[in-house]
Structures are given as structure tokens and as C-alpha cells.
């Protein structure tokens, strides 16, 4: 499958630490996620972008569960499906158990790069993280500083900055579950 051949090298490079390839992987995946979730959540269009973000965060935090000999499409689809069912359950939506047993192709059959505004602001959730996680994320991402600059600015060591971003993203995913 064409998508598999395109996404797989990008993810593999990303898993080796190539930030650019990884960004392209996430970008393309997000378009497929959006189209997939928009179809499944036709009654709740406002929630789609929230769930796209939550799923991306899950893909990122669970990227160590990807095994190199399995199709990326099957892996990503299983995560998207899990997040969708989890969301439907925690919102007590009737029919949560009736999510059709579609296959991986279903996730990649269409794509939608038109990001709507998310309802839940991850930026606000970010404010609730402890400083040593929040500051590295804010400086590096939102202000575009490098690890070295962020370390100098915050007085944290470079490895503490990296660990802070890493733990912060895990904590963010946990906060989303807490507020779901």
C-alpha cells in the first residue's frame, strides 16, 4: 500500500531521532485521523479536533510500542480506534461498543488537513504542569528556543530540559484523561 510505504520510513527515521521526518509523519497522520474521526463523530463535529490532538499525543507517548516488522497503518489504526472507543465510553455515548470492526485501511482511506480550532485548549492544560516540565515545553516550542538556550534560561541542565519535555508530554496526556 502506498501510504504504508510513505509513512513507514518517516516513522522509522523519527524513532531514530530525526525530528523533521517525524514531524512529516505526524502531519500526514493527523490529516488521516481528522477525516477518520470526523466520519465517526458526525454528531459531534466540535470534538473532532480535541480527539485528533489526544490521539497524536498518544501516538507520540506510545511510539516505543511500534515494532519494526508490523505495518504502521495497522498500529496507528489500533491506537486511533482505542482512543475513539475510550472517548465514547467516557462520554457515555450510546453505542460506544458498536464501533465497527473496520480495518486499517479505514483510517487511511481519506485525509483532511483542514485543522479546526480545538475546543479544549492544550495551552491551558499546560499551565497546570509543574514548572520543570512546563518551562522547557513553553520555551522550546512556543518560543522556538533550542535545548541549550532553554537550559541557560531556566537554569536546568540540558538533560533535565529534555526529560522535562518528555515527562511533560506524558503528564499532558494524563491530564487529558483526567478532564475527559
Amino acid at each position, binding site marked *: 500500500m502506498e501510504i504504508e510505504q510513505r509513512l513507514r520510513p518517516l516513522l522509522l527515521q523519527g524513532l531514530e*531521532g530525526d525530528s523533521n521526518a*517525524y514531524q512529516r509523519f505526524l*502531519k500526514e497522520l493527523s490529516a488521516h485521523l481528522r477525516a477518520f474521526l470526523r466520519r465517526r463523530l458526525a454528531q459531534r463535529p466540535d470534538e473532532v479536533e480535541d480527539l485528533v490532538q489526544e490521539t*497524536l499525543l498518544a501516538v507520540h507517548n506510545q511510539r516505543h510500542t511500534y515494532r519494526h516488522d508490523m505495518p504502521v497503518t495497522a498500529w496507528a489504526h*489500533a491506537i486511533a480506534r482505542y482512543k475513539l472507543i475510550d472517548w465514547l465510553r467516557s462520554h457515555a455515548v450510546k453505542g460506544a461498543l458498536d464501533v465497527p470492526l473496520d480495518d486499517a485501511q479505514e483510517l487511511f482511506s481519506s485525509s483532511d488537513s483542514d485543522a479546526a480550532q480545538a475546543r479544549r485548549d492544550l495551552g491551558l492544560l499546560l499551565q497546570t504542569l509543574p514548572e520543570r516540565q512546563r518551562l522547557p515545553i513553553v520555551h522550546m*516550542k*512556543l518560543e522556538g528556543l533550542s535545548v541549550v538556550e532553554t537550559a541557560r534560561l531556566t537554569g536546568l541542565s540540558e538533560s533535565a530540559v529534555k526529560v522535562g*519535555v518528555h515527562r511533560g508530554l506524558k503528564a499532558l496526556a494524563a491530564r487529558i484523561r483526567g478532564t475527559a
Partner: protein
Amino acid sequence: MKTDDLIGLLAQDAEPVASHAIEQRFAVAALAGLGGGLVLMLVLFGVRPGVVQDMALPMFWGKLVFAGLLAAGGLAVLRRLARPGMGLGHSLALLALPPLVLWGLAAVALGQAGAGERLPLVLGSTWRSCAFNIAALSLPALVASLWALRGAAPTRLAWAGAGAGLLAGALGTLAYALHCPEMAAPFLAVWYLAGMALPTLAGAWLGPRVLRW
């Protein structure tokens, strides 16, 4: 935060990832669980005094092989359940084999025994406590393997919890075999499996409660 900003943020955190991180975590959990079970066995029950003589009996080793194979099968199932989109493959067959062989041995033993000897073969002298003792010794491994799963992404939470419980039961059985005096296949076929079923059921119940991600 816009989705593109989030993607940029995630890409910043593209640290290299070890491809066998999950296997390592399960290995640590299994060793810690087995160690915990052994310590608990020493504290609660003690090694059986005649254990050195027992080592001459094939069934002593048979019990260890049985529990060891089930632990290996449990690990094989778990590492698949821990990854999204991975089917179970043939790993379930690996799990089914040891009990089937044991039941076969038990059936043969019961068939050869006289009518009055059958019930004693099944009940042994410790049938009241055996399953509960195994379940108790499997507790450290249950905690450890659920911990390992929490570092992964199981999508079928009850099944993943059951797999963790089964692995824990097998490791608890390994520890208990050093205390347990029973050597008859019919006894093992009933009570050892019952002892493993308890943590398996507990894991299936706990899975959806503690494994969400």
C-alpha cells in the same frame, strides 16, 4: 494550542527510541515478580524439607517445566497484547499446550488407578490450601506485570490484564513448587490450574481499571 503547534512540540521530543523497550520491561517485571514470589514463599511457607530428595522425582521437574512453559507462553501473549494492532498469532497455542499435556497425564494416571484411589489422587493432602497459596505467591508478579503493561499500550484491557494475571500465576506456581509436596498429575491438573486461574481472573477484572492510557 493548534494541532500544528502540538505536532511541532511532539517533533521536538523525537528522542531515539529503543525498539525492544517493552521486552526489557517485561523481563524486569517477570524477574522481579518471580523474586518476590520466592521471598514470599520463604517467609510464608518455607522450602519443603525433603526438596533435595524430591529432585530425584521426574514430577518435581515436571512441575517446574509446566509452570515455566506457561510463564513463557504468558510473556509471548503479553508482548503482543502490549502493542496496538498486533494480533495474537500462534501465541495462544503455546499457552494451551502445557495444560493439555498435564490433563492427558492426569487422565492416564486416573485410568490406571483403582476406583478407591482416584479421589485421593485428585485431592492429595493439601487441596484446601494449594490454589490460595499459589494465588498469594503470584501477587508480587501480578503487581509487576501490570506495572510493565502500564508502560505499554494494550488496546484490549481485560485480555491484557488476564495475560498479566496468567503470567503472575505461572511465576507464583514456580515459587510454590519448591514448597508443595504434591507429585500426582491429577492433583496438579486441578489445583495448580485453579491457583493460576485466580490471578488470571483478578487481572481480567483489574485490566480495564488500571491499564487505561
